[in-house]
């Protein structure tokens, strides 16, 4: 497989790596940059475990080629906590016990962040549709939805914490 030099921004840091022309962004994040927080559950864009935010848009990193990251701004789960401080979504997931095995959690958190970045006050239904691309087999989603509702409320009260997550 031929490789190309990819220059991109991951969690606020400029990075360069050699990306395969057939390599997914997910594989590049995991295998080249060793950012293994993004998970592969299906490789076909059906489960959302690999969700990352690219230039403000939620994408399945398994469906994007690594060279397509050139010049983009990528946010992964590893950049969600800032300076050792968890994002309100991360804290609320823990407070609500919104994870059991935790495998889908990074993707759910990225999808929830992408939703709240656009819609700071979503209804329960909007949250359910916002997270409909992320399969969770453990929780039945109940506590996940509640965690997102509470994180949204917290972010509306103190919007600076939201910016902290996005600034990186």
């Amino acid at each position, binding site marked *: 497989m031929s490789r190309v030099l990819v220059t991109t921004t991951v969690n606020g840091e400029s990075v360069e790596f050699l990306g395969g022309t057939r390599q997914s962004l997910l594989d590049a994040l995991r295998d080249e940059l060793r950012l293994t927080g993004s998970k592969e559950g299906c490789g076909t864009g*059906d489960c959302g475990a690999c969700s990352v935010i690219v230039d403000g848009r939620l994408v399945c990193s398994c469906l994007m080629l690594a060279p397509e990251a050139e010049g983009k701004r990528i946010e992964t789960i590893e950049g969600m906590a800032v300076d050792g401080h968890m994002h309100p979504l991360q804290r609320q997931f823990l407070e609500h016990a919104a994870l059991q095995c935790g*495998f889908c959690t990074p993707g759910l958190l990225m999808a929830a962040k992408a939703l709240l970045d656009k819609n700071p006050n979503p209804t329960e239904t909007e949250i*359910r549709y916002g997270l409909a691309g992320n399969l969770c*087999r453990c929780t039945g989603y109940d506590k996940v939805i509640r965690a997102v509702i509470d994180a949204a409320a917290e972010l509306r009260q103190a919007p600076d914490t939201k910016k902290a997550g996005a600034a990186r």
Partner: protein
Amino acid sequence: MSDGAAGGRTLKVVGQRPVRPDGADKVTGRAQFGADFHLPGMLTGRIKRSPHAHAKIVKIDTRAAAALPGVKAIVTGANFVLGEGEDIDHGEGATALLDVAINCMAREKALYAGHAVAAVAATSPEIADEAVRLIEVTYEVLPHVIEVEAAMAPDAPLLHANMFTKGVTPKPDKPSNIAQKIVMGRGDVPGAMAAADVVIEGRYETAAVHQGYIEPHACVASAGADGQATVWCSSQGQFLVRTLTAKILGMPLSDLKVIPAEIGGGFGGKTTVYLEPVALALSKQCGRPVKMVMSRDEVFHASGPTSGAVMEIKLGATSEGRITACDLTLKYQAGAFAGSPVNAACMAALACYDIENIALTGYDVVSNRPKVAAYRAPGAPIAAFAVESAVDDLARKLNMDPLDIRRLNGARDGVKAVYGATFRSVAFLETLEAVKNHPHYTAPLGPNQGRGVACGFWFNIGGESTGAVHIDEDGGATVVSSNPDIGGSRAAMAMMAAETLGLPIERVRATVADTTSIGFSGSTGGSRVTFATGMAVTQAAEKVVADLKRRAAQMWECEVDKVEWRDATAFCLDPSKDVKPLTIAQIAGRAARTGGPITAEVSLNAQGAGPGFAVHICDVEVDPETGRTTVTRYTAAQDVGRAIHPSYVEGQLQGGAAQGIGWALNEEYVYGPDGVLENPSFLDYRMPVASDLPMIDTILIEAAPNPRHPFGAKGVGEAPIVPPLAAVANAVRQAIGKRIYALPLSPPRVLEAIEQG
């Protein structure tokens, strides 16, 4: 619900909802799951799989693959030499070692589409994929059989020439696909049926469904030049992986260390091996670490779903609604090897009810499907679909409330189950009562809506477990156990230890150890960890407390029975001593002078797990134009003994309900006429997503704490998947005015039923 007292004690930690010890790593992407390990020089392993449902393997030519630059090792069935094998008991049933080995790598025949026939290890994923393509397998395609009743037919294609139905006397003289026939029961069923005022009959079908864990199977295996090896993998039991892998490869267990990764869901499906022996065989061949990760397609094709089934039920009852007899026949798919959960299904099917006359017949049937694996309360949800639907029909026929008829017949203390146990400390009736009093049960329904209730039972198990508690030099504690934490069990372990030691939860850390760092434990399964491993951890903490008291007594030069332990502090009750209390930190800091490190490890074989009973209410709305069913409201109640961490107990109820809803409405293995699975992806195998479900309300019944557990815990993970199939089906029955006897209740099937009128 009750709170605060187990055996009269006031509890400070148990029953609270602290953040789990491994939580931060799991929300920040730091937790290491099966596919997250990298080793220097690591190769990528890939598997060549049969495209045929049933075929003789005539020849495997690996020469072209071996010649490809970058290919370092190739294995086929010829590399796995195993004799007759043996059964490996892992707590929740036994596994035939030979079957597991042949399932990992086919020998003479490929028994299902997706069966592994060869494997390679190469320096990159691309080279490994190309090498798999270059392996030439010559097959002689054989007739195949997929459906359970077709496989039972006398002229069905045979999977195993040496399979003679067990449980039939005299031993059959011809082989068959029926691995075993199970008969159990009591009383006089024909007589009771003849005397019954009402008889309800039905023939029910369910499809094979997958556990659907989001993390595919993954491992890294590394064999050393001295024969010693290490495997990192995601599984429900590192000791089980060690046993199976070492025995399949003919190694002493001491030559294999298995390090558990975080596990991304299992639900029973990770209680066996698929990749580990293959990866280790490849690593042994080339001396380099080999990583193998299944694709989702491989997970669907080649890892274990649970059985699809055909069931026939007949219920007899008095006109007052008392069930007097049940005749139930269960025909379960086992996949390509013996071992469906039909035995457990027979035992669990009627355990919710006190029925005098019972006849149960079970068939364990092989066909050209992947070998089934355990799936949450193995076998029970399927049987409950038939039983709870029939009970619903009985209530309707007698114009009785469906909860009242269940209360009238419900299991209670002193009732003897058909499998032999006499119930003690069960709270099934209280659970039914709580459901009846819940506002959900009497909420009004709209047009095209229906409400269903159903019950479920699971034994729960105990078994072999080890737990250790170490007091750190600063007075904190480390809890070590050997059960992979699949849904928050580290939190439960830490909480029980903290409660026993009197420490705040923040001072207790819980870890999961590898096979060389702690004594043996059975797998994480059967809802046994909080019960059995929790018992080991609690006993280890109690030993540590006894040791701490002894050390305090030594420091005070008083009798040990004059030392009281409270809030992680020793108090001297001897009035002749003018001493200040000693904190755990003070005692730990002086451990070298009082006997050395303060630590205890307890290994036990826990008995008396205490069964779980679940009662669910489901509301649905059926779109009469499309047949699409939407669950509009759901409530799950369960006899939990005592909830150690109520949030994670609720999570078990909610997750089990969601899986059961998927099973009821959409999930199924769909086969083409060629015997090949047609929907091996999350797009086509439709599991519930967030927008498919409502909030799932929970009711934790703590009316009957388990007397065998130090804090009263009963297993909670299995029972919640048992009722939903029937709860959904009963709701749809009410919504459309007609029963559908087969799952899933997918839109085309429901629409067809509506249109038939």
